[in-house]
């Protein structure tokens, strides 16, 4: 069974640009979560999508946005990039039948903003 897949794995952008990151959850998982892992800050919760709807977001500005498609894959968009957006962006999915169950993570997209 394929795990959570993310693309691209690495990318470099400059300040002010926009970026789109992609995530495909494990087959059968309808919930997708996005986390930001910046150096020394652990994992910060960004967004949660379930059944195509944004269910909750963390303490991030509106320039962080996303969507979930009918096949449950998801995109994370970051507009007007700032230097501090440099981080590893992790996507996770969860089996909807298990409340508070395990999150399964992808390997992440490493974004560098110059």
């Amino acid at each position, binding site marked *: 069974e394929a795990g959570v897949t993310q693309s691209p794995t690495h990318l470099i952008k400059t300040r002010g640009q926009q970026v789109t990151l992609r995530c495909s959850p494990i087959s059968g998982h309808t919930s997708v979560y996005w986390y930001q892992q910046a150096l020394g*800050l*652990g994992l910060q*919760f960004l967004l*949660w999508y379930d059944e195509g709807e944004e269910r909750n977001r963390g303490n991030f500005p509106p320039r962080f946005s996303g969507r979930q498609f009918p096949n449950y894959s998801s995109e994370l968009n970051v507009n007007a990039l700032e230097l501090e957006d440099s981080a590893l962006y*992790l996507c996770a999915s969860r089996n909807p039948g298990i409340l*508070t169950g*395990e999150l399964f*993570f992808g*390997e992440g997209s490493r974004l560098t903003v110059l």
Partner: protein
Amino acid sequence: AQSVSQHNHHVILSEAASLELGCNYSYGGTVNLFWYVQYPGQHLQLLLKYFSGDPLVKGIKGFEAEFIKSKFSFNLRKPSVQWSDTAEYFCAAPREDTGRRALTFGSGTRLQVQP
């Protein structure tokens, strides 16, 4: 909302040494706790989880954790570490503001095991 904190940011051990990584949680009703590990260049994966019952939880690769309610702690232990245990370790708990469907993570502990 439930939160977790990890006080050991960087731990260096020699092979065969015993390991204990600290995790403290804030009170938030029903307590569910997780430990995840991130090996270099790999995805985050679950080591173990506590939901209820026996407070001593055994996970993969010889790791275990003990839930101590009176101390609000869920420390991760391993009797004898190996070089391959070099990784970053995260404690986590469900976020109340997501109906406990998303997790909040501690800041992580980087473990370096020297051969």
